[in-house]
């Protein structure tokens, strides 16, 4: 049976990394905030994705 943590983790890790890279490369900002939203949100997403992948790995060993 498919472990849902695997595809979810993969999706957020890929999206998160893409956002972080885009946040570093692209200097444009949203009209109402000076924060680099892509970089921070991408970081959180990547961390979440990696945690899910680690949990999936631990789950498959058990």
């Amino acid at each position, binding site marked *: *049976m*498919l472990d*849902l943590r695997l*595809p*979810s983790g*993969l*999706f*957020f890790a*890929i*999206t998160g990394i*893409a*956002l972080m890279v*885009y*946040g570093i490369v*692209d200097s*444009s*900002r*949203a*009209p*109402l*905030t000076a*924060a680099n*939203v*892509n970089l*921070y*949100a*991408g970081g*959180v*997403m990547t961390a*979440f994705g990696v945690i899910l992948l680690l949990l999936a790995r631990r789950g498959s060993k058990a």
Partner: protein
Amino acid sequence: MKLATIDYAILILYFSFVIGIGWRLRKSVTSAGDFLTAGHKVPLWITSLAFLAANLGAQEVVGMCASGAKYGIMTAHFYWIGAVPAMLFVGVFMMPFYYGSRARSVPEYLKLRFDEKTRGLNAVAFAIMTLFSSGISMYALGRMFQLVLGWSFDASVLLSAVIVLVYTYLGGLRSAIYNEVLQFFLIVIGFSPLSILAVQRAGGWTGLQQKLPDVMTHTWKYIGASNQNPMGVEAFGLFAGLGFVLSFGYWCTDFLVVQRAMAAENMSDARRTPLLAAFPKMIMPFIVIVPGIAALALTKSGGGYSLPMKGNGYDYDQALTTLMAQFYPSGMLGVGLTALMASFMSGMAGNVTAFNTVFTYDIYQGYIRPKASDSHYLMVGRLTTVVGIALSIATAYLATHFNNIMDFLQLIFGFVNAPLFATFLLGMFWKRTTGHGAFSGLLAGTCAAAATYGLTLAEDKGGWIANLHSFPSTMAQNFWIAIFAWSTCFIVTIAVSMVTKPRADSELRGLVYGLTDVPREDGINWYQRPVPLALVVCAALIVLNLLFL
């Protein structure tokens, strides 16, 4: 709003994952039971999040942000009063009968407990209602993407319908549930930054309090009289209408959500599903309602953002998307829009999977072909999925003329769902209740709802028979429709049950309180038992309400 390549890339990535999950799960479907009930093999954390996410569709995310801007933090009552207590009740008290009876659907429980006609009435009403909700999801999606991105209405409706069709057709209920969980993560991750950024821009919570009238940042202070708050409701209507009748009617009897708990591996997990779901449910207002409040504060204080206008007032339904356009750069914007699209689609998928189960088991197997092979019902289940989505598309094109999706859905709830909880309450906890009683109670309750709507007026709605009373808002009217429907059903069910013949105790084992073995809890940690878990939720709920009193 203009999308960059990266935004489209994220949207496409999400679609491929959604379809990929369906594709990987196709092998897990070998029987009608796998397809329609996920074979009772879904892990607890997934059923819990799906229980929550199945309800997190279009009306939720967009409507709640709109209501936040319109009514303020009082909107949180829809979660704290209007959902959590009912979720605790269904987990602690009702799940033993649903799961224990081995019924495959809520209408089937009604058949086991009462009789064929009660099941038939409920199954047909529910089937129509799910198609309606699914169609409204599609309509809202098409309209929103047309408005925000300039996409063609037909193209967005068809694209989302095809994707939902592919993954539900391949993996059935399990696929729908898995994708609901993915969508839930996406909603939280895609919308919490918006809440943080908008509130920060408005000067934090204290900034919101300074910029807005006091009523917008308090949940209870102005609930004493209906003319003091923008919702136009008073405490009794709120507690009895929303907190009791509508909320229990939805969370405790609506097969769409109950189906998620019934997919759990065992009784203990089924009971804990709604209880664990209550924790994230309590927090959701901060993600979906608070951005709306911040939108209003920014508009009033000239913070560089203003809510779009519609006629003489604000177009609240656009609050969420216009905020995203102002606070999200390309990239994050793609995540936000994907989250929105995902919530629309899983709203659809939830309805479709509930519809195909009820149609296949309760209508087709019940009345059309009772004794066919399992593979035949699997085929019918798959076919129903296709037909259900086609009918939803048809409904999407019919869904017009209603200014607020939320109000409209509640009108339907009032007519069909509100009396239902009286039937279940009596059926599960009073063994004397009879099938004739339940059936006539339901009919009478629905008639009472329609009559209340016909005899009262609110914001030019209702009153098609006569106008005996005017409500300050349609929300107040909906709450009172529900109260009348429930009370009528309750009284008529008891009255008719008293004069009709009850079933023997031996036939009601596992179906009624007092004739059912209480699930054993020996050797289970206290934090895994339903009652202590429910008490922890209650304590957290009280703290939240005190914080935003």
